[in-house]
């Protein structure tokens, strides 16, 4: 029993954090927004240079063979930075799902290009109403009646569904399923699709934890500077207590997220309840932190000029992404009402 990250895990996340601190500041986001572009090509190139595209793909398939616990802090860093590029969805969810079907020749060829960073892949999973980043992806893994199809985006009808989050690119995807597009039948696809949902929910939670901390940090920075009644507003208890309450939410979402990441590969009722608990806790933290930050900023907080709204909007987007609160609460209920409870079962799994 050792509830700590390895030095290597933390170092890898630190490298990502430092890179994003360098190339993904709000000013960078605003520039991208002004250009109306999907990606910042030079930033995306730098991220790809780190070789993270295949982080969660097995070494046999040409990836790094890392686990969710190795990637979770990276996803937090992406949330903290409000990263527009699809590192989390591509490397964290789509490519490990793609790799599950690598016996298929089309999949194997695409996987090779994706691991090299030449293309990205996205997923149309039943847990989500829309498909993210379909315009920039080479192909979409689409679930139809439980079966998985691989569809080149060039051959699909893609309709943009603009999101309030300026850096989220959502689409609906239509295509004609055929033997040529089919990659895996429903029974073969069930386990990989469940794993994709687990990863998607976990890493969405991680991003929300990151953006929650960003909201608190923005609020703290402003509260130290902004003076009223001759003092920084952060010296007043009313302001302090708002921010402390948000930080408490973060502090008690984090260990749930990390336990969920460590146990993701159990793939049972217990680990799924923990992932869902993490999604709920991080959603709550992101909600409280974003609203607190806006309140602490006062009228500035309601302005386009202050950066908090980027994180507020990402939080709203991720709340329903890979399962909303009702869905995840029911996954918790399935464990709570059907399995033994109590302190001796904290780290339990199906025997």
């Amino acid at each position: 029993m050792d509830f700590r990250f390895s030095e290597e895990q933390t170092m890898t996340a630190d490298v990502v954090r430092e890179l994003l601190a360098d190339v993904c500041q709000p000013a960078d986001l605003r520039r991208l927004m002004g250009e109306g572009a999907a990606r910042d090509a030079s930033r995306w190139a730098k991220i790809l240079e780190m070789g993270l595209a295949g982080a969660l793909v097995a070494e046999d398939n040409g990836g790094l063979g890392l686990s969710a616990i190795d990637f979770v802090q990276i996803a937090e860093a992406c949330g903290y930075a409000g990263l527009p590029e699809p590192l989390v969805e591509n490397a964290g969810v789509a490519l490990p799902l793609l790799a599950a079907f690598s016996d298929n020749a089309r999949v194997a060829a695409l996987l090779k290009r994706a691991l090299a960073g030449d293309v990205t892949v996205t997923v149309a999973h039943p847990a989500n109403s829309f498909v993210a980043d379909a315009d920039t992806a080479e192909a979409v893994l689409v679930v139809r009646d439980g079966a998985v199809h691989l569809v080149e985006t060039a051959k699909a009808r893609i309709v943009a569904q603009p999101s309030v989050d300026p850096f989220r690119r959502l689409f609906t995807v239509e295509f004609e399923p055929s033997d040529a597009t089919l990659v895996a039948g429903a029974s073969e696809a069930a386990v990989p699709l469940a794993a994709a949902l687990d990863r998607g929910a976990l890493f969405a939670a991680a991003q929300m934890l990151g953006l929650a901390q960003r909201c608190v940090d923005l609020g703290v920075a402003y509260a130290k500077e902004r003076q009223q009644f001759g003092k920084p507003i952060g010296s007043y208890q009313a302001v302090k207590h708002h921010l402390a309450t948000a930080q408490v939410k973060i502090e008690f979402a984090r260990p749930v997220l990390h336990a969920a990441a460590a146990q993701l590969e159990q793939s049972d009722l217990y680990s799924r309840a923990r992932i869902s608990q993490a999604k709920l806790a991080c959603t709550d933290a992101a909600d409280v932190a974003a609203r607190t930050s806006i309140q602490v900023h006062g009228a500035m907080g309601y302005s386009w000029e202050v950066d908090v709204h980027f994180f507020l909007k990402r939080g709203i987007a991720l709340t329903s992404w890979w399962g909303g609160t009702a869905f995840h609460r029911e996954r918790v209920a399935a464990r709570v009402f059907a399995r033994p409870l109590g302190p001796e079962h904290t780290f339990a799994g199906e025997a």
Partner: protein
Amino acid sequence: MDLDYTDEQQAFRQEVRSWLEKHVPSKPLPSFDASREGFEAHRAWERVLAEGRWGMVTWPESYGGRGLDLIQWLIFEEEYYRAGAPLRVNQNGIFLLGPTLMEYGTEEQKARFLTSMASGDEIWAQAWSEPQAGSDLASVRATAVLEGDEYVLKGHKIWSSRAVFADWAFGLFRTDPASQRHKGLSLIFFPLNAPGVRVQAIPQIDGETGFAEIFLDDVRVSAFNRLGGEGEGWNICMATAGFERGLMLRSPARFQVAARKLVELYKAHEAEVEPTVRTAVLQSWMDAEAYALSIYATASRLAAGGHIGAEASTNKIFWSEMDIAMHKAALSILGARAELLRTAPEAGDIGRWLDGYFFSLAGPIYAGSNEIQRNIIAERMLGLPRA
């Protein structure tokens, strides 16, 4: 990150479980805050624990412990609450003063006080607050004047938990009369039966007398009873408070067992309650789990040589607010029966939820009010300026 117990840890759990199965009293003991009889029954239980060397498993063997690490302590606590064993009447001693003595005490002081603390022969009360020094603890007025090798204690302490029946108290006294605020304070122990000590019980919301006022009128104690140097009392108290809020005061198992009981209560009354209660019940379970996971993370860090910091304050806010929410959920399930005393013929399965609810309302106040904790988080974790 390795979230599996080792074979050794699992064997330890089994050892604790089988010992508790043999020794935990079959009937709940009467409250230690309501009568001398209940208090002494709990002292007797402390002696049973001590004979099995289960009193404080993290302490060195020389003081009656087993020299175990914090993960093993958590496992012990999990089994302890799972078994429904009695509450620890000496918690002020073993959880708060004990660790502090271990860090700041001389070898002679440790030998004198720790062994009798672990054995239950000396039960401790806390004597920090005063009528004018609550959240503003640094405005302590009680004085300790050194005369030869004795201190003469004078002052008025209040809200002292367990003081009605306890044997000893540890208190904060001003040893430098010219000093202000945090400076010039010292931590001094005194027997509650010493000449010049008068203890006045304060009835609580629930009618019990868990706390008291202590009047000290020229009480003479040996200078040996001062922990740390003169003037170091404030820093030592803050270290104690760190342990209190941080880790040991409320072990997660307490809330996980309460959450389990809440789920059982909900299942028994599912058809009668409104849907929002289900959400509250699930939230209670999730919060108890989150607290447990957080403490495992902290214990792992401390075991690797880390120190507890301002997260002690986040813990205290989290468990105290969770405790209230959990009891509120239970009361809403009980509905009209929530107000009944357990002696009422129609009480049925109301259990101790109402007592627990009352006690939960004290949670955001004792061990440093949650308002003070939020100040600490804001200033020490987030770096906001002091007022």
